[in-house]
């Protein structure tokens, strides 16, 4: 795992792309910091981070797009998968390398509250929790990007998949607040969500019977519950959407409420995405 980690990290330093992405990221964070914190005389770094988190949707897929796609394209994956190393540790080696590279600008970000403390009072614990969660959110998105990269051998396609997934998660948080909280709207929303989920399952399993059965069971369950007790559905869709979205959970943190459940939620999604990545790679060997 260490060998792969070192090689992967070195390749980020060897490519222009890596530096460019970090530069843009840091530049944007700094501009927002200047505007939001320094300009408004605001002592809380979380406000900057919340405004700037939308750029994750663009820069993180670019960082992760080459992780597996390039290996497959250059056929170097044959070297990795014929070496006496577990697939799981190959994935972790690569993931930790990209996380390490992505963490570099946080050295600068971590110094920002110190700068602010020169001009007024800063609540350090709250500030650093905000930075930590901001970093953790990035880590989840990186894991998702690694998964996207394992799906294809074209880097651009990998980046687009990552971007699409990211942006829909981001928009989800916004959309959740717009939808009416009536029970029927919730039912429709949940049905669509079910359909999307089932489509995802189908993409992995590729078995029309199993997925079809699953869809029918879920839909009937929804309908039955709706007809028996429709007031249960009120506002449910909004809750579900904001529950799923990594970004709305991030918003809660910035608001000042630290929830262990959300941290666990993030960490378990990192594992889940990497587990899916392993599944995709294994599947390719079997097909």
């Amino acid at each position: 795992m260490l060998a792969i980690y070192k090689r992967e990290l070195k390749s980020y330093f060897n490519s222009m792309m890596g530096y460019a992405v970090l530069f843009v990221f840091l530049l944007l964070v700094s501009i927002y910091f200047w505007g939001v914190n320094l300009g408004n005389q605001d002592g809380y770094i979380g406000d900057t981070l919340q405004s700037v988190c939308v750029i994750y949707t663009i820069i993180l897929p670019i960082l992760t797009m080459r992780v597996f796609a390039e290996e497959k394209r250059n056929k170097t994956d044959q070297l990795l998968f014929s070496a006496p190393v577990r697939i799981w540790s190959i994935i972790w080696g690569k993931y930790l390398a990209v996380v390490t590279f992505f963490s570099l600008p946080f050295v600068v970000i971590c110094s920002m509250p110190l700068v602010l403390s020169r001009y007024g009072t800063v609540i350090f614990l709250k500030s650093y929790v905000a930075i930590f969660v901001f970093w953790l959110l990035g880590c989840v998105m990186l894991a998702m990007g690694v998964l996207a990269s394992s799906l294809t051998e074209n880097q651009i396609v990998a980046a687009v998949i990552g971007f699409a997934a990211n942006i829909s998660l981001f928009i989800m948080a916004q959309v959740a607040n717009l939808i009416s909280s009536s029970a029927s709207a919730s039912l429709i929303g949940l049905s669509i969500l079910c359909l999307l989920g089932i489509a995802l399952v189908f993409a992995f399993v590729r078995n029309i019977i199993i997925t079809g059965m699953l869809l029918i069971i879920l839909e009937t369950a929804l309908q039955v519950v709706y007809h028996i007790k429709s007031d249960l559905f009120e506002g449910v869709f909004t809750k579900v959407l904001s529950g799923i979205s990594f970004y709305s959970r991030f918003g809660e943190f910035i608001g000042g409420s630290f929830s262990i459940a959300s941290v666990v939620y993030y960490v378990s999604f990192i594992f889940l995405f990497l587990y899916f990545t392993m599944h995709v790679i294994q599947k390719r060997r079997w097909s």
Partner: protein
Amino acid sequence: MIEVKNLVKKYGNHVAVNNLSFTVEDGQVYGFLGPNGAGKSTTMNMIIGYLSATEGEILVDGHDVFEEPEKAKKCIGYLPENPPLYVDMTVYEYLTFVAELKKVPKKDRMSQIEKVMKMTHIEDVQGRLIKYLSKGYRQRVGLAQAILGFPKIIILDEPTVGLDPKQIIEIRKLITELSKNHTIILSSHIMQEISAVCDHILIINKGQLVAEGSPEELAEMATGSQEVSLRIKGEKSKVEKVINALKHIHRKEYKETVEEGTVEVLLFADQEHDIREQVFYSFAKENLPILHMHAIVKSLEEVFLEVTTDSKGEKKLLAHKETQETAEEKATSVELEKSIEKESEE
């Protein structure tokens, strides 16, 4: 030792490898021979655990590739068809990475890397980025990578594709050298390459093992009949009369005349009876001089074509075409090799 038992690999409805079984003994050079798309690479990829089998099992040194992949993979060095190189690394960095990946103990790493670079003659380029290397050098770096760690078994998938004849000879020498301490499996669709370096040949066609044995055994196997070509001075009617009187001949083919006043003929006979003496005396009796007599021994190439083509007419035609092409190919490459050998002698 590698044991492959009833191996099957299906891609959807397409059967790439069909019930393949064979055993690779230690300390020998094995050659996989087969036309393009015969399933050579697929089989190799399954042995090293890159692809999984639909059915069947593979034991490498007693370890099942699918059950205990790490242990099995540790015994094997592999050079795929396209050398798996990270082009943004220098040769030395790359080999260091591979050594770490293969879990070569830290104290041996340096010396092993030096050794494999020496064996594959890439010391001069060790500081260069792989992306600036030529195809031949890349192939050699790939080979160095496969040798690194000095595993028991080294698998090489078409190791000489895209190399010039001089490099081909170098790689062959290296393979012969390696075979003293390692079991080697290599694949190729070029017969003379296989017959030059291999102790044992497995001919694969459409995912099935169609013939197996040493080069000599295979050649013997295919020579079921005896062929003698003749050039006789004299009138055709006289010659025909003599030939018709010969014994044990089951087929004859008259060819176009090459020299004026001669007859060109190809005779087929049972293997048990050498017809040459009989031919000589019969023509001598009729005062017809034999200008040219040649018994044809089948080459590995013909064996290969015989076992890999169907008996249907269509396929035969295709095979015939291929024979011509490969024969030409062979001729040119042999010439090239000869000229290079001459040069190096000088």
